[in-house]
């Protein structure tokens, strides 16, 4: 249902007047809020040029923000590749005919989906060194934790995708004499991956955001370098946080747009099976616009 057209009638003179009053009332409220924030900033001297000036100097960008941005992307990229591999392996494991493969895969996936990412990261960073007696590099603590969590989420997405492929596809493949592994690898996974592409890209948004947890175990990513360290030198926490937030929003809005574009593209060609997942990934944008009018 395309909401903007269906929920209310085309406004008549009275409805237009009412909408105008609401617009003005809410607009005034909003402006009052913005003004209050402005005054609060002024009261605490947050508009002082010295606090904003660092962002006009190139050294701020080359010494803090750019290295942090690169480390954020590096952790996200490595974790994404690893969690895709993890996801495919455990999805296939969970769909296996053998209980000794199916049950452990299910336990692993369910467990890592239920454990908070920070708890996992703390265990890897602070706990594992007690066992191995070697310090754990914080890059790998971030990447391993992200892989275990996002890999488990993707495993569920892939499983839903494989199950959404019409049964005739695997029946036809068996009929021409393919083996179980060939049916999975050559028929089901490629179709599932295509249907799940928007979900995978949406999960990438989750992953980019979660790299910020690396700040807590002092991995030098955007929040650590671009906000914490920068603010330690210039005393401009609020300003640095705003700039960092804008960068995160820009990355993630781009990824969300890509997910939406992929979803529309897949739907239009109509060849890939429709599939939905129950994972949290559904929430990120791609599923937000059902194509009722198309």
């Amino acid at each position: 249902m395309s909401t903007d057209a269906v929920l209310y009638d085309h406004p008549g003179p009275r409805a237009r007047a009412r909408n105008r009053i609401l617009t003005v009332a809410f607009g005034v409220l909003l402006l009052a809020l913005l003004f209050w924030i402005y005054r609060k900033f002024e009261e605490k001297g947050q508009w002082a040029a010295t606090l904003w000036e660092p962002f006009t100097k190139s050294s701020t960008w080359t010494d803090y923000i750019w290295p942090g941005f690169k480390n954020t992307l590096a952790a996200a990229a490595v974790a994404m590749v690893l969690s895709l591999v993890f996801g495919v392996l455990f999805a296939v494991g969970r769909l296996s005919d053998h209980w000794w493969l199916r049950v452990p895969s299910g336990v692993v996936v369910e467990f890592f989906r239920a454990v908070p990412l920070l708890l996992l990261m703390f265990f890897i960073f602070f706990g594992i060194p007690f066992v191995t007696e070697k310090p754990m590099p914080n890059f790998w603590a971030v990447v391993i934790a992200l892989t275990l969590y996002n890999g488990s989420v993707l495993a569920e997405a892939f499983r839903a995708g494989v199950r959404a492929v019409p049964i005739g596809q695997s029946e036809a493949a068996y009929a021409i004499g393919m083996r179980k592994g060939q049916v999975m690898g050559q028929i089901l996974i490629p179709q599932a991956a295509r249907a799940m592409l928007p979900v995978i890209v949406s999960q990438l948004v989750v992953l980019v955001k979660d790299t910020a947890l690396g700040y807590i175990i002092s991995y030098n990513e955007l929040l650590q370098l671009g906000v914490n360290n920068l603010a330690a030198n210039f005393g401009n926490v609020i300003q640095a946080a705003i700039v960092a937030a804008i960068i995160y929003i820009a990355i993630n809005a781009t990824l969300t747009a890509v997910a939406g574009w992929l979803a529309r593209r897949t739907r239009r060609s109509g060849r890939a099976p429709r599939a939905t997942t129950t994972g949290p990934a559904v929430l990120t944008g791609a599923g937000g616009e059902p194509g009722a009018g198309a």
Partner: protein
Amino acid sequence: MDVFSDPTNRDVYVTGFLWILKLTAASSVFALVIGTALAAMRVSPVPVLRAFGTAWVNIFRNTPLTLIIFFCYFGLYSTLGFTASDNLELNNYWLGVIGLSVYTAAFVCEAIRSGINTVPAGQAEAARAIGMTFRQTLTMIVLPQAGRAVIAPLGSIFIALSKNATIVGTIGLAESSNAMKDLINSNGNAVFQIFFVFAGTFAVVLIPTGYGFGWLANRLAVKR
């Protein structure tokens, strides 16, 4: 040998999970209220309200929660002098609740909006045909049906919220992940036991909760 037979350690464990419980309880109520209001704004006939809802969702959904919590503490509290309570611990708690609610509300809003999209257009058209206003159509016809369609997504949002509550540990609340870190650092010989007790508690509570929401969603689904 057994870490959790020591009453001090058991205390650390219990306190940690009590904080998670309190954070989840307060934030889920606020997030649900704010999120529903935002969803109503996003489908309303007034452009300013729609723009406000869209801006909120795009800003908070795309910012890492760690940054939001960080901002609540260092920006809102340290720099701008906003205090929620004189008690330092309670102040951190409320700052955490603000961050979690503001962030989760964006997801609740999107879930409810996609729930509204599952209601067939005929329902709203029929409501308008018998002369219902926008508010009546939304609260009496569309939202009740949408609410039943979004139980499963809302369930996974609240489960994510309870896991995200651990991030409030960043600003010094002794919730479960900080509790686990402290226990690991003082009991290096039992790291696996400590991890499996903490992680197991989350798994034992959250996995059945997830299935519970799935069952509820099936039971309450609108038959079409």
